[in-house]
């Protein structure tokens, strides 16, 4: 094989790999993405029943019910609309009422969510609300500093 021919093969090989990678990316960005909504957005749009989706919001105050061991029902809210979530499994450590969470699951006919995963944020100090507001919410402000 001449040197030139060998280089040609190398270049063609590179191009083939690049093309394969691009095809993979294009195919997978169509297949493997999950849409993310707030409760209000979800209610505005009509979502297919069998499509996996994620909903972000806060756990509504005094909506949390433990129906049996590891079987929960609660509401997720964005302060204007709520959705009922059914979840069977272990809840994350940081899961609490009024805590920001993300729920992954399917929507049923009555606009309730059957969740397969529940995520809570890593660190409650890093929530978007200002520090003082956060403190007041946790009822720590009055107790400790005044």
């Amino acid at each position, binding site marked *: 094989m001449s040197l030139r021919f060998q280089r040609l093969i190398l270049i063609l090989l590179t191009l083939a790999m690049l093309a394969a990678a691009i095809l993979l990316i294009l195919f997978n960005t169509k297949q*493997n993405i999950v849409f993310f909504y707030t409760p209000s957005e979800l209610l505005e749009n009509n979502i297919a029943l069998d499509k996996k989706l994620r909903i972000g919001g806060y756990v509504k105050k005094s909506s949390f019910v433990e129906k049996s061991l590891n079987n929960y029902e609660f509401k997720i809210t964005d302060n204007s609309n709520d959705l009922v979530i059914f979840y069977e499994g272990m809840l994350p450590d940081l899961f609490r009422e009024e805590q920001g969470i993300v729920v992954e699951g399917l929507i049923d006919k009555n606009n309730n969510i059957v969740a397969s995963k529940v995520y809570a944020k890593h*660190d409650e100090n890093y929530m978007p609300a200002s520090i003082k507001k956060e403190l007041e919410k*946790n009822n720590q402000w009055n107790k400790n*500093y005044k």
Partner: protein
Amino acid sequence: MISLIGFSALCLSTIFSCIVLIPKSILQIKIKYFLFFIRSSSFLICASFISLILAYVTSDFSNFNVFQNSHSEKPLIYKITGAWGNHEGSILLWVCMISIYGFFYSLFSKSSESFKVLVLKIQSGIFIIFSFFIIFTSNPFLVNSVVVEEGLGLNPILQDPALAIHPPMLYLGYVGFSLVFSLAIASLLKTNSDETWIVETQKWSIISWGFLTAGIALGSYWAYYELGWGGWWFWDPVENISLMPWIAGLALVHSLLMVRGEEAIERWIVFLSILCFSLSILGTFLVRSGILTSVHSFAADASRGLFILLIFFVTTGFGFLVFLIKSPTKKNNLHLLLINKTSALIINNILMMIAVLTILIGTIYPIIIEVLTNTRISVGGPYFNSTVLPILLPGFLLMSVAPVLSWQTNKIKKFKIYVICFLILSITITIQSYLSAFNPWGFLGLLLGSWIIIGSLISIILRYKFSLTSKYIKSINSFTAHIGVGIMIIGVTYSSVYQKEYNFNMKIGDEVTIENELLKFDEIKIVDQENYQSLRTFFSLKNDNGIISYIDPGKNYYPVSKMITTEAGIYHAWFKDIYITVGSENNNQWFIKVYINPLVSFIWIGVFIMIFASIVAVIKK
């Protein structure tokens, strides 16, 4: 008081670094004084960071940052690590490390004086940009406006030994690339034909890469036992952005092997050096701006995000601009053949770049989609598994033989032995996987992993005479590193493909059988610890020969932050981990989740070998 000292030291350190940057035409600084300024700046920034740690240790709640992230009842080690367990403190650590890298460079560099000055100037420039970022947007020395007796406490989930040293390790990796960046830019700007920068880049890029590896592995190990999800990698954006500079750094380390005076390769190395640091900053931007809807999101502060984006554009823009303007000084063609070492390394680099690109697209795709169509999406594990892995597969195949390829010819010494061994291995593994549960990924992973190990072993045996000397260890170093990767691939494959999950509802005294072992729920204990209350469920694991081990998963309750953390109980054996987490309780029935994770220990062993190899590679020089 101590905050004031810290802040003054920070400002003074920045001023010293600015003095260094004064052009020669205005003020001629002798090299002696130049180094004095550089080193004093490093000492001052360290003093600043130490005073922040002291503020944490003494629980000085007049400092707003301490108030927000610490509590007087916390154990001492977490008071110290609390200093970098938050945005402001961690950025101070970051800046401190930029300076420390500069300091060590000024000590150990053997380059000519003018080149050294150039590198240190660029390094100081980066230092100044980031210290401005601290002073203007993320000052950890702010005074608390109200007088308080007690702080808010560090997030309990971060109170963990692995996570305490994870950020410094990770940052030593990220920030190490700043020095590599400075070296690369200086090599473009330099006026003489000094080639020592390649040797230096080799050393510093391996150091950074080694630290980055350790940092990512620690984070991953932490996620494994602390999150209680049974896995160790979740393709979360925070993980992805650490993986990008890691892969780019890997490509850089490999490209540096190729340098044999070829201009094209030198250009490529400079490009990769700039890219590594750019990806590090991009990562910081994506995490700190809160632009990504990640489970791990940090502070969502628009002004900070904007500032980091600015830093990203300034450094990256400057880097690539210099890269484009400076034309090559000499022209040497690449010695490319079909299967010589150079072409293998080039294919490896191309694959790594494609992998970086794929991860980058997957990570920022949600942002692009949100900007364009106003819908929010998330790209999860399945995307990355089905794009990144196939891209890396040919690279893994290549790396088993690449170190034995020749630079000059197409021939491989004793080629037949490799072919025969490969055939024997594939037949064995085919039979093995046919007899056990067949899984295509499991098959591929096992084949590739064991082939990398065996291929490297053959090469070591054929090419080097065994002796227990440091020279021997050095000469087989690249094979050692690859064996580490091979072991890791097997661990990754098995722990993800053959993981098993069992759910039980158990009360005290219950026994369940899992595979060949008997798991008995012995008792529950609630104990008050220093700053938390721990609940531990005790299990004993038995087989036919008696008790193997006790496992004690549980929960910790932190009264300060009113939080509960899950503590997984893990029984580590060489070939499998038995991983137990405890859920909630109802009528004395406890929900118990048991994962059988085969060969997880291989991942950590593989990582250890890789880090060992990078240490050997640094000592070599």
